[in-house]
């Protein structure tokens, strides 16, 4: 048996590149049993190379995991590699090779409705640029390279395409092609980089560890352009119905959640009598329509809502208490406030550790950290500001936060020591052999708004009507 440190650790992507990466690994004899789109497990072992281990991550996590040395090698889109390197050029991350497959590009796009058709056209407008993006570092670098004189960047967890033109004048986003952008009501202004899959390595591993057998497998990567994850042709893009509604000043602008929260939110809204086409009917239209002319709706990520409310882009939003608190921990004087607890979607935000760790509560953990057991304690969380405050309030020191974008429970025990995450039943934690040592708070869905008054008494009356209607659902 080799010691654990001599094992080679590989970070593999979920999502858009999973199938094509699995095909490639099979072709070059690096097969991992169970690496397919139906997999429920996160930890894999190579069938041909017994000392090669792999873990499946959200693609965005992979460059960070490789850069900090938790993994020797990784495969992910070059867009996420550049997002890290743009901001942290000295990261210990080496791009080894382009894997000759990928999908689409990172684009700069604006709304078709603005009439702007080029970057120069946008520059000529001399307005402050509001840039929305899942890639805030690439967005900043793009704006600086154009010498944009005044810009603000709004990082989002997703759905960047729905913000222009009302809530942003530029989106930096991944798309498969121009037609997909157009189908979403966007106009392509610039291609920033192709979203190709890339093999990356940790610099120290490359300098000090024998990875040669694995690397040489990649010498024979075929130039197979048909390995795209989904057989994709631009012609097959379904045009979404992009409502040409305007955010009129008298309208109440409402944000509804996508993802896990959509179903319970839709049920609740239906119960109180709102019939929203493209939302309460189980479909997902980013701009669903409702038979109330004073209500404009967009569907965005619940994580992004408090920031959007604080900036006045929306008047009301249905999100979780957890995301409101996460926002308020980051921006304590933000005007975003809770207006109404909606009582559904109950989760607990907990601190959890590996089952085998001999701690029962946070006090035990503090003693272990003080005793020098962790240098430092590695804390994985989607809620980095909640986690940061919790650790400070409990005098845990030193610690290092590892931001994650979902599936955080898979980080323990190899890549993190403590998890701050939400749980519904606790079953997932149990499956990953984790135990809860503290409950930070309980969170349910809630309606949030901006504490600064709405722009007119008429709007206030409509918002009040909306709140009163929702209250009926709580009885």
């Amino acid at each position: 048996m080799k010691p654990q440190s001599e094992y080679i650790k590989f970070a593999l992507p979920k999502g858009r590149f999973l199938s094509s990466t699995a095909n490639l690994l099979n072709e070059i004899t690096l097969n991992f049993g169970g690496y397919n789109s139906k997999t429920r497990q996160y930890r894999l072992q190579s069938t041909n190379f017994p000392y090669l281990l792999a873990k499946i991550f959200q693609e965005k996590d992979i460059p960070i995991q490789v850069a900090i040395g938790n993994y020797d090698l990784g495969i992910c889109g070059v867009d996420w590699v550049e997002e890290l390197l743009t901001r942290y050029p000295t990261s210990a991350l080496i791009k080894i090779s382009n894997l000759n497959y990928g999908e689409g590009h990172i684009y700069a796009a604006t709304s078709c409705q603005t009439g702007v058709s080029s970057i120069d056209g946008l520059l000529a407008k001399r307005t402050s640029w509001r840039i929305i993006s899942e890639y805030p570092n690439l967005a900043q670098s793009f704006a600086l390279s154009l010498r944009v004189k005044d810009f603000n960047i709004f990082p989002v967890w997703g759905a960047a395409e729905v913000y222009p033109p009302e809530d942003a004048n530029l989106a930096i986003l991944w798309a498969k092609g121009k037609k997909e952008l157009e189908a979403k009501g966007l106009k392509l202004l610039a291609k920033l980089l192709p979203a190709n899959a890339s093999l990356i390595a940790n610099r120290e591993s490359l300098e000090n560890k024998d990875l040669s057998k694995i690397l040489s497998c990649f010498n024979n990567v075929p130039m197979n352009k048909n390995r795209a994850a989904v057989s994709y042709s631009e012609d097959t893009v379904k045009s979404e119905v992009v409502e040409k509604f305007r955010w009129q000043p008298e309208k109440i602008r409402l944000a509804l959640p996508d993802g896990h929260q959509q179903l319970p939110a839709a049920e609740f809204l239906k119960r109180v009598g709102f019939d929203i086409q493209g939302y309460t009917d189980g479909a997902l239209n980013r701009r669903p329509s409702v038979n109330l002319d004073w209500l404009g709706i967009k569907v965005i990520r619940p994580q992004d809502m408090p920031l959007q409310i604080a900036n006045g882009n929306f008047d009301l939003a249905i999100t979780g208490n957890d995301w409101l608190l996460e926002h308020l921990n980051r921006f304590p004087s933000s005007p975003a406030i809770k207006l109404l607890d909606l009582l559904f979607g109950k989760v607990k935000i907990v601190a959890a550790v590996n089952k085998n760790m001999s701690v029962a509560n946070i006090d035990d953990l503090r003693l272990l950290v003080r005793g020098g057991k962790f240098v430092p304690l590695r804390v994985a969380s989607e809620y980095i500001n909640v986690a940061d405050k919790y650790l400070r309030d409990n005098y845990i020191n030193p610690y290092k936060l590892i931001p994650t974008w979902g599936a955080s429970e898979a980080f323990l025990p190899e890549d993190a020591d403590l998890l701050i995450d939400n749980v519904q039943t606790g079953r997932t934690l149990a499956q990953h052999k984790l135990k809860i040592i503290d409950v930070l708070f309980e969170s349910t869905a809630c309606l949030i708004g901006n504490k600064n008054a709405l722009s007119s008494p008429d709007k206030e009356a409509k918002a009040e009507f909306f709140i009163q209607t929702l209250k009926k659902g709580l009885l």
Partner: protein
Amino acid sequence: MENQRCKGMRDFLCRDMACFRHIEDAFRTCCIRWGYQEVRTPTLEYLHLFTATGTLTPSKLNKIYSFLDWDGWSGERVVLRPDGTIPVARLYINNLSEREIAKLFYVTNIFAFEETGRENRERWQCGVEFLGGAQLTADVEIISMVKEIVCKLGLDNIRLQLSHAGLMKALIRELGLSSIEEAKVTDRILDGDWQALLEAKTAKPELNRFLSPLLNLKGKSSDFLQNIRALCPGASADFKSSMEDFINITTLLDRLSCGYEIDIMAIRGFEYYTGVCFQLLVDGKKIGGGGRYDNLIPLMGGNAPACGFALYVDPVMELLPLGNKKGDEARVLIKGEEATPEIAKTCFKLAQSLRERKYVVEIDFSEQTHDGLHWIILISGSEPCRFDVTDCKRQQHWNVASETEVFNMLAEQN
């Protein structure tokens, strides 16, 4: 756990601070004597301040320490001051723009990310801004000031290199490139990559006649520039007027016997400069630089031509010999034989009286030894205490009975 210093940050120890203050004092004294007034700007500024003028290159902006403040939900980023001049220009526009001329100076730290972490990411500079000074005498004034300060500090082998940003920009326009190409060449040159100009020039061979001598030779008087001017009769009006300005300034410097060398390619990072710009070197090390920046304040919404310079404290500290910065005050050590209430009271009272008489006085009740003292006064006994006075320089010793006698003794021997 070891408490480490942040990468790229430095501690100033006692000897470093003495050296720092020595430089700062020489700089402040000179500025005050030339009629300049001191200002200080905050460490945090909005990122917008530095992007708004479009004068800093993307590569410089990418090294800025920027973050969201606790109330930064609007996406407005704040930065640790990356440059000394732009904040002072803001201060001037906000507060002093009614003055026709404002002559300001400051001692400040600036922050820029340096990748290896081996160089300082926080650097100190002593800066001067002459706001509202349009005449070439203002350029000559700041060049004279910086030379005076460097001489006062006792630095030898100073090289003053001159270039002219207006001339460079006119020269780039002479190449006749597309606007995108021109912006690229300009950015590369601003980042110090002069190869861009040499690569681009081949497109217009008629420029070679004067471009090559202008870029490669190092003139030591205004005659050099006169010669170059004679080689380019067909140059643009912008080029000619910049050349005229450069010749006038160098002519005045010649008259003042201020030595310099014209080295167009030596200077980098002249993002916002529009006219003459310069840098100072000692033993090949860049210790300061400056120039004219007439467009910066108008781009920020004000209205004033300006020029200025900064002296870089960190390299100057490395050049100054250590250990010669001790204060020349007479240092006195009052030692209490024991820490009894009476002896302690007598020690503190005597120390206070001596400090009022401008002595530097330390009190000590331990056995430790001290360096660099002129006097040691040992206090012992009770009702009344005895005073044992030692003149360390002359190796003499006296016993005296009262505070008054101590004062007289010290005054007499000084």
